[in-house]
């Protein structure tokens, strides 16, 4: 085989990136374009799918040019994408029907109580692994089709198609109106709330509950399989993988075995734990999801806990409190003091999510004393991210019946060494950062390369993973317990001061 590069498209929330990797899984080049965020009403967040497709047609050639290669040098293309975002388009014209409703959009909150009466929580969790929230795609389809009888009619006949972002991109890459294939992968489908976690296909009962006609849904396929051959942008190249971004990061971090976990620390944080070949139904407030599936093989599952406020709390500290000029400088400020001075910040600005699911909870700063300085607050901000990680890990350990032995991390906040040491100290397990930062793209590239045989098996990929930095726990157990009591007390205050108003309405709009 002469084609020795793999191209990954990371279709993210704020931008679309194309990264070229070589056969050793090393980064070669990148090109990136941001797309516009539309906020037509409070709580609404939309993207223009046509703009995103146009960006793909620009970033892919740009990344290839930087790498000095052509489509003939590309063994396969892999796609990783923002999950849960809903795109509708006309099969005949290829035109999006309205803007895409993104995963951050909370417009469906008022629909949830009604939907909750149709499908109760235990059934949902058992069937599709997700709690009813504004995160999932299905309520968005309910909303869209109720808004427009015309759309509903054309959806029922399959003239209007639905897809998450990878579906939209694959359809366009494979020819769009002239022969585009209409497919999704198991990881993306597992975030819609419409797929049965065990059969790995659309569930008619859920489809009925959410009023979604089967004719508009794409075919569900494994993550790593030949989804088609591109006729646009990379003519002739095999699309060897499509996978949701957080699952891609899990794969890019080489967490292939049960018990292996990664956490991506960005604006929010996403912790995924590989639970092996059976889905674990969470009784501790986590989502159960498909981690990966290769052609002809059983699926691998994961437990997922998402934390709404990690980097965004740092942004609040920087922008609203003007305590630092840039996010990384919070570490400098935090290091001006030895400890948190007894101060804890519970960042529940719009409720507490996994694993607590208390949307009515409101944030708080506990134990304010006169000797507190900006440095103590900086520590408390960083520790809030670490404690929220601990809460999710403890829920995972309880659900999965095992104890996490190490945590792999990635994302912008991992350059904060004090935070990483604190996570290790409070979790009491080593924390490891990989050498390749771009774990989402790498995961998509790995999956695509596996499909076309560029890499023979997972063992080879595992050898590509190298540790860039490692933090070992360095805190006396008594001290950890003392700190834990402080966090728990602060958390309890937040929860008891809140007026209960279930059910959950999902994450805050950014």
């Amino acid at each position, binding site marked *: 085989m002469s084609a020795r590069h793999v191209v990954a498209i990371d279709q993210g929330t704020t931008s679309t990136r194309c990264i070229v990797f070589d056969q050793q899984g090393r980064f070669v080049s990148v090109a990136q374009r941001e797309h516009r965020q539309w906020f037509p009403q409070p709580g609404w967040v939309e993207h223009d799918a046509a703009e995103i497709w146009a960006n793909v047609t620009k970033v892919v050639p740009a990344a290839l040019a930087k790498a000095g290669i052509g489509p003939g040098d590309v063994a396969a293309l892999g796609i990783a994408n923002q999950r849960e975002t809903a795109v509708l388009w006309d099969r005949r014209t290829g035109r999006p029907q309205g803007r895409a409703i993104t995963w951050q959009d909370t417009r469906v909150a008022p629909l949830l109580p009604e939907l909750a009466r149709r499908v109760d929580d235990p059934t949902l969790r058992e069937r599709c692994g997700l709690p009813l929230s504004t995160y999932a795609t299905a309520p968005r389809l309910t909303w869209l089709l109720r808004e427009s009888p015309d759309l509903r009619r054309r959806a029922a006949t399959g003239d209007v198609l639905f897809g998450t972002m990878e579906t939209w991109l694959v359809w366009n890459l494979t020819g769009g109106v002239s022969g585009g294939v209409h497919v999704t992968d198991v990881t993306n489908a597992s975030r819609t709330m419409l797929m049965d976690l065990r059969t790995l296909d659309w569930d008619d009962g859920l489809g009925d509950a959410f009023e979604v006609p089967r004719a508009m849904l794409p075919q569900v396929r494994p993550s790593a399989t030949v989804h088609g051959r591109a006729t646009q942008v990379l003519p002739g190249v095999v699309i060897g993988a499509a996978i949701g971004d957080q699952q891609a990061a899990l794969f890019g971090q080489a967490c292939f075995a049960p018990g292996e976990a990664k956490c991506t620390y960005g604006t929010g944080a996403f912790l995924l734990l590989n639970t092996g070949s059976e889905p674990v139904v969470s009784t501790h407030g986590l989502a159960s999801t498909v981690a990966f599936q290769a052609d002809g093989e059983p699926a691998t599952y994961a437990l997922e806990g998402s934390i709404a406020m990690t980097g965004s709390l740092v942004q609040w500290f920087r922008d609203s409190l003007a305590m630092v000029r840039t996010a990384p400088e919070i570490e400098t400020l935090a290091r001006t003091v030895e400890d948190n001075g007894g101060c804890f910040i519970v960042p529940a600005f719009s409720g507490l999510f996994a694993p607590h699911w208390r949307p009515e909870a409101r944030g708080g700063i506990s134990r304010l004393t006169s000797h507190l300085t900006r440095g103590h607050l900086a520590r408390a901000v960083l520790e809030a991210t670490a404690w929220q990680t601990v809460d999710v890990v403890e829920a995972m350990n309880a659900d999965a019946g095992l104890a996490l032995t190490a945590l792999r991390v990635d994302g912008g906040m991992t350059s904060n060494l004090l935070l990483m040491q604190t996570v290790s100290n409070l979790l009491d397990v080593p924390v490891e950062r990989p050498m390749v930062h771009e774990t989402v793209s790498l995961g998509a590239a790995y999956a695509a390369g596996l499909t076309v045989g560029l890499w023979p098996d997972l063992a080879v990929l595992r050898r590509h993973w190298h540790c*860039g930095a490692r933090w070992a726990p360095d805190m006396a157990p008594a001290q950890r317990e003392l700190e834990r009591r402080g966090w728990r007390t602060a958390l309890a205050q937040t929860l008891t001061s809140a007026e209960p108003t279930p059910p959950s309405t999902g994450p805050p709009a950014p």
Partner: protein
Amino acid sequence: MLLQLVASRADPVSVSDVAAALGVAKSSAHELLRTLTDVGFLAQDADTGRYAVGDGARRLAHGPLDTNLLRSLTTNLVDALAVRSGESAYIGVLRGQQVEVVHHVFRPDDTRQQLEVGDRHEAHATAMGQVLLALDPAAPAVMRTLDPVRLTQRTLDLPALRTRLVEVRQRQWACTVGERTADKADVAAPLRGRGGIVVAAVGLVGDVDQVVSARRDPRPVLLAHVQAAAAAITAELGATL
């Protein structure tokens, strides 16, 4: 004085304002403004052509470069240096007579390694330190009182160090072999912020036989990796710092 003038005005100033206020010809005012803009002390508005205080001057007011910010901005590029060279990669800044490690990426060979961020080494005995002693704006003051401690048989004394620093200034990179630890060699190059001012050094450290040839020159590929990393990081810093 010019900076004070610009900083004292509520609105951005024009070339004529400056010429009038300082009592100089417009061409001289223009030249002064350009120079200060080039080093980042002033910023020119693309639409109106007027001048305001730039990030560089604000940074002076805020003290030295924040090393946590520096690490955050350079993570991808230093990772790439470690992956490509197969050695551990570092960023260091000058702290008096020492160089402080502010970023460290492990050697990609899966052996157990310790994070060395925060460690300080005698600047005169390391490649990063020699780069900074040769090029950092704070170096002349440091050199006036430096009495280099002898750490190994190969550690340079003051006259030899001065000769070395002249070479480093000329080549824009440094390499030491066994000068701090007998069996280690290192290669480093300068990182520049806005206006070309050296703010830090990037380098790699490895076993002597890996890093240098029998003639004790850095292996050309490794030197090229360090220089490429320095250029890429400098471009990044120039755009943001």
